[in-house]
């Protein structure tokens, strides 16, 4: 976090010496899933934008970001799960998609080469339900005929805090396993089976998996990359095994019907397509429809426009998928709602 004094001094300095009006400080908060990209974007934008405006994004979690927005402490929020229709109406909010990213299962399996383990939806669900307890279980062995699987207990690591990443992950599991959809279901925080280990945040899961032999967890792809964790290949809706990467996340996004979606509410999990990664999610920006300060609103859209135009390269380099051009057109159209 930046010291408020520095922010103040910065604003004051610009206030005194500026020629082109007053530079604004605009705060956003929310989802940790896209936070690495948002951090890079705000850094570049703060340095380059002509007005000297300052954008901040605090990664505090989707739900927390949206509630901060509702109470008016931030100007925009980031959320990994689309805000409920009821809430959009009640609090007069609007949302649009900003990035697409992948959630990947990560494993710590001594003796198995990284990225070689293959799983399908039902097997993954059974592991996270606690039904498959050992790595050499026949179900896993059948999916991996070439691998020597250790006789090791599976330690399931999952989120202990409510999280948009969990929402995307359980959204997928609910589609591929009836037992999952009837049991834990699709939510930001679900009832996990007894004996699973809870860890806080994407980094928490990455740490625990890195440290625990025989463990499996799920994180946003960038965190898996950063921690050097072994990912798995998943069988997608077309029955093909796919490796998680930007190309397979993008393949998932290409089939989505954005035009007919309500408030951009689409689900990118378990999509058709030979190379589609099945656990792909959208992360949203949420705004108030009624903006108090017109100038701030204008600057915000200036920034978001810059993100769509210039931010794609940074996003791809960090393994996220920028929004396709036709979706950006729809998004910009939706900005007219904000007054």
């Amino acid at each position, binding site marked *: 976090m930046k010291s408020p004094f520095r922010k103040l001094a910065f604003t004051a300095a610009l206030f005194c010496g500026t020629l082109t009006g007053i530079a604004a400080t605009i705060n956003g908060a929310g989802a940790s899933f896209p936070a690495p990209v948002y951090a890079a974007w705000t850094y570049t934008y703060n340095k380059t934008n002509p007005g000297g405006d300052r954008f901040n994004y605090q990664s505090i979690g989707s739900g927390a970001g949206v509630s901060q927005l509702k109470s008016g402490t931030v100007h925009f929020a980031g959320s990994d799960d689309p805000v409920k229709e009821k809430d959009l109406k009640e609090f007069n909010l609007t949302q649009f998609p900003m990035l697409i990213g992948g959630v990947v299962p990560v494993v710590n399996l001594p003796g198995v080469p990284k990225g070689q383990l293959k799983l399908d939806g039902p097997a993954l669900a059974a592991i996270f339900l606690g039904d498959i307890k050992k790595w050499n279980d026949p179900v896993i062995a059948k999916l991996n005929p070439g691998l020597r699987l250790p006789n090791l207990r599976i330690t399931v690591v999952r989120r202990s805090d409510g999280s948009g990443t969990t929402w995307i992950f359980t959204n997928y599991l609910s589609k591929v396993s009836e037992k999952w959809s009837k049991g834990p279901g699709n939510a930001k925080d679900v009832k996990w089976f007894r004996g699973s280990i*809870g860890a806080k945040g994407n980094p928490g899961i990455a740490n625990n998996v890195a440290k625990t032999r025989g463990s499996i967890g799920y994180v946003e792809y960038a965190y898996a990359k950063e921690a050097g964790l072994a990912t798995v290949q998943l069988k997608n809706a077309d029955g093909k095994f796919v490796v998680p990467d930007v190309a397979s996340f993008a393949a998932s996004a290409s089939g989505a019907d954005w035009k007919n979606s309500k408030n951009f509410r689409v689900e990118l999990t378990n999509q058709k397509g030979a190379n589609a990664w099945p656990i792909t999610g959208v992360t949203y920006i949420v705004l108030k429809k009624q903006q108090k300060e017109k100038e701030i609103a204008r600057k915000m859209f200036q920034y978001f426009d810059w993100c769509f135009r210039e931010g794609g390269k940074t996003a791809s380099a960090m393994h996220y998928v920028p929004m396709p051009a036709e979706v950006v057109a729809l998004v910009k159209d939706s900005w007219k709602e904000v007054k």
Partner: protein
Amino acid sequence: MNEPTVLRKSGPAKGGPGGTSLSDRVFRWLAICAAALAALLTIAFFLQLAWHSYPAFREFGPGFLCSTQWDTTEMKFGAACAIYGTLVTTAIALLIAVPTSFLTALFLVEIAPPILSRIFGCALDLLAAIPSVIYGMWGLFVFVPFMQTHVQPFLSDTLGLSVIPLFDGPMTGFGFLTAGLVLALMSLPFMSAIMRDVFRMVPAVVKESAYGTGATTWEVARDITMRYGMQGLLGAVFLGLGRAVGETMAVLFIIGNSEVISASLYDSGATIASILANKFAEAEGLAKSSLFALGLILLCITFAIQIFGQLWLSRIRKNAGGGL
């Protein structure tokens, strides 16, 4: 001997009658305000927590305290798992920390030569100064893998303790036992520091008389120091307890964060403090209110412990010197 009186008399003469009485009054009020702040804050905490937790207590009634549910999808909440986890980890911590810190303090005061006593004393104080998040990181990176690969297999398989449900469970390295052990390490320096002070309160003259009658070091330790300090022990235990009960970060890293009640110490669990840290950011409505209720329960527990510990200690201080 009369100096203070003289000074007080000369006071008004210097600053004039009005000036001093004004500064006196200002000073008085500032002091009162500063002192009242602590009391007001405490009351405000209780009121705030009670206010925000009211919806949870209204919805779930007294059953909140004994319900084991913590279900965000069904919006049903209960405090039993959190209270259970808090009690179990604290109990493990005390079971280990109390005898260890007792022996440490006894060694420092009675047995160790002065140089050694000072070195070990410093080490204890340093241990007390380590921030809890460091204990948590150490716990996660070093202690959890060590528990998984060495301690748990040793207890369950080598010693054959797995016949007892306490030591029969998934050996993940996380869980109640690991959290309890780290809490023991964390409360140890506090408890031994107080015990050391308690033991030092034993008047030298009493000990020397005992030595004079021909008692050995062990006899003096057992019959004089220990008897004298016995009352102080409970005070120390209660202060250590206060630390263990409210500890958040270290526990969050290593307890496994599951809202369950389990007979096995290897199972992952949760404490009140760890649930608060985990769930607060994303909680809304009844979930948030239930978290406030948990906070209220935690505050009541630590408050009771502190008051009891302080009362006990002050009683001992009053009695010190006249006890024997």
